[in-house]
């Protein structure tokens, strides 16, 4: 998937449905280890390793956007 395909300019339900249906198989399963990637802190601009979020306890991670 190219960045342009990921960042589509128009929402299309027919494109979203397969993603919804694939979620149980195509995402990280409970009981397994979560993959860690780098993210950017919006306020500080610092790079954050995801594994730092769960190093000291539980973290709730909500995904989303303005739209």
């Amino acid at each position, binding site marked *: 998937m190219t960045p342009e395909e990921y960042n589509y300019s128009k929402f299309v339900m027919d494109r979203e449905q397969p993603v919804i249906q694939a979620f149980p198989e195509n995402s990280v*399963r409970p009981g397994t280890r979560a993959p860690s990637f780098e993210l950017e802190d919006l306020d500080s601009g610092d790079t954050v390793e995801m594994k730092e979020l769960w190093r000291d306890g539980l973290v709730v991670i909500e995904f989303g956007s303005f739209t």
Partner: protein
Amino acid sequence: MARRYADRAVRSVFLYTREAHPGEDYRHHATMDEKRHHARAFKEHNDIRRRILVDDVEGTVHRAYGMLPNMTWIIGSGGVVYYRAAWTDVHDLKGALDETLDGLERRGSEPLAPFVSEKLAWRVRDMEAFRRQLAVAGPQAVSDFFGPSEGD
């Protein structure tokens, strides 16, 4: 909710992804600066107090975790995934968080073993609220979802 559970050493973060419903006022991201700009607007508009972490423009994290627009996860020490939800629902999340915390606390004194349990949950679908939310992005976001006549 985030503040209530902060007393129990639970962090809460918001992970900013691609725009799910781009429109004239909040278009799709072509650069990281655009993504940051939208994330700041989201934070201000919704008075978000949680820490916001921004994924890269390629959506590396979002794609790895299933690419749905409003997922929620509970992850613990060592990266163990305790909960995944295809949609964020406060009631469902609260139940999962209470169960996870309860198990982690009790396992110190009881012979507990973890197991995976799956279910189909329900959420309230408020289409009028959703329409208002889409309108923030612009008329295109409304018409792309509801159809052209609905977006006029």
